[in-house]
């Protein structure tokens, strides 16, 4: 009787251990999914911004005929930014930094464009331009939020896979740390135009 009881207990312990491993693994998978979803939200918003650019450039061109250098600069920056794609499952910090850098350059180019537009009162009064400008501002804000969101989700995931004893499960199943967006004070808010 005692011997059987001992075996039952051992099986129970093993069973609980297996359950715990399962549960931990599943939670890591879920959180990884959250991070990937947040990443695709970041990409969406940046894409949305990139999509605004051709229209914006065309509108400005109509009024600011001699600002070709600036306009070309924007188109080039946009091309560079849309070329970089990242697979969130395997992203390295360097990849993410490069992505952030390219998007930052587009932000700067857009900032220059908006500054140029200042000197063209007719352009500033153009409804289409105003609409595009507000969409650009809105999209920049959304990009900021999306980045913040991603960082938060990535942080939760990283904590989950690094905490003991979960980190044992993580290393067995190959869960790796996700990179973060670095704090970028300049690109925090959209190029503002004061009325």
């Amino acid at each position: 009787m005692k011997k059987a009881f001992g075996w039952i207990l051992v099986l129970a312990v093993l069973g609980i251990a297996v359950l715990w491993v399962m549960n931990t693994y599943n939670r890591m998978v879920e959180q990884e999914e959250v991070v990937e979803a947040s990443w695709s939200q970041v990409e969406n918003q940046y894409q949305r911004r990139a999509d605004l650019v051709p229209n914006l450039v065309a509108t400005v061109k109509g009024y600011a005929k001699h600002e070709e250098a600036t306009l070309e600069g924007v188109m080039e920056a946009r091309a560079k930014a849309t070329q970089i794609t990242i697979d969130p499952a395997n992203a390295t910090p360097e990849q993410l930094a490069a992505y952030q850098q390219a998007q930052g350059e587009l932000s700067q180019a857009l900032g220059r464009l908006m500054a140029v537009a200042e000197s063209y009162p007719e352009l500033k009064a153009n409804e289409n331009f105003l609409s595009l400008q507000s969409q650009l501002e809105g999209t920049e804000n959304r990009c900021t939020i999306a980045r913040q969101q991603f960082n938060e989700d990535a942080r939760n995931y990283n904590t989950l896979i690094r905490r003991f004893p979960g980190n044992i499960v993580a290393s067995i199943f190959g869960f790796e740390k996700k990179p973060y967006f670095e704090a970028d004070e300049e690109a925090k808010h959209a190029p503002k135009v004061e009325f």
Partner: protein
Amino acid sequence: MYGIDYTPATVPDPKKDGQEFYVSNPDAIIADSDVVFLNTCAQRLEKETQVELCVVALGSIGDADCFDFSYELFQRWGIGGKNKNTGVLMIFVLDSHDFRIMTGTGIEGVLTDALCSEIFRSLVPVFRAGDYGGGLCLGAMRIYEICTDGEAPEELKNMKSVTNRGKYAQMAADDDDDDDEDGWDLEGWILTFVVAFLIFLGIREKWLLRKKCPKCGKRTKLAKNEVKQNANYKHGGSGIYHYKCPKCGHEWSVPYTTPKLTVSSSSSSSSSSWSGSSYSSGSSGGSWGGGSTSGGGAGGKW
């Protein structure tokens, strides 16, 4: 100058007073009649499109950035339905001349950034002229018009826009800032207790239940329990424990008795009681729907 510097945590939530309130006006920046109009407008809007409009008029938010403030407030209160996210926050700050309309993810398609920007620009002269309440009422009317125009109401009512934040933020919020992703959870605790119990049993077996051999001192386990009689309600029990030391072969016996059974010792007294009064959360208060925003909308300095 206008009272305290508000933070997203200290702005009074109008829903606390009831589901039919949508306006937070703690410094009385706008007149009561304007508040009534805004509430009516928001009520109709919610009835016809299920959009939750929240209007906040504050004297000051200190040095805080209006966009960040609005975002935090929106997320904290959860404006808009949880699975629709068709919430709108219209925020006005007096001392820093800030105004913003922030849109939930589900309403972005109808109340676009461009439209929000248009509304903002149209209100700038009104605010500058000092008619804050009037400006906000105009803004609310405009939002109402946009949301009830054409097919917009149907689109908004049928909107399903569950965000990541919706699902997982709710879980995190329910745990009250407790880390939901703690690697040490229920199974871990059960495992610990079971292992501890096993260790305890092991110790008991090897130590406590064994008696020292009078001759050589080796801890010896029970060889035989000779029960003379079992304890019952008439008399106590008695028996003899027989030991045999495995080291030196010495055998010895220890007699024992057990007490007579009594009535009260066999039942555990359980007092029945009510499990406690049931609490109603927020007796007359209401709440926002639990929606979230991705930072859309428009605004600026007026």
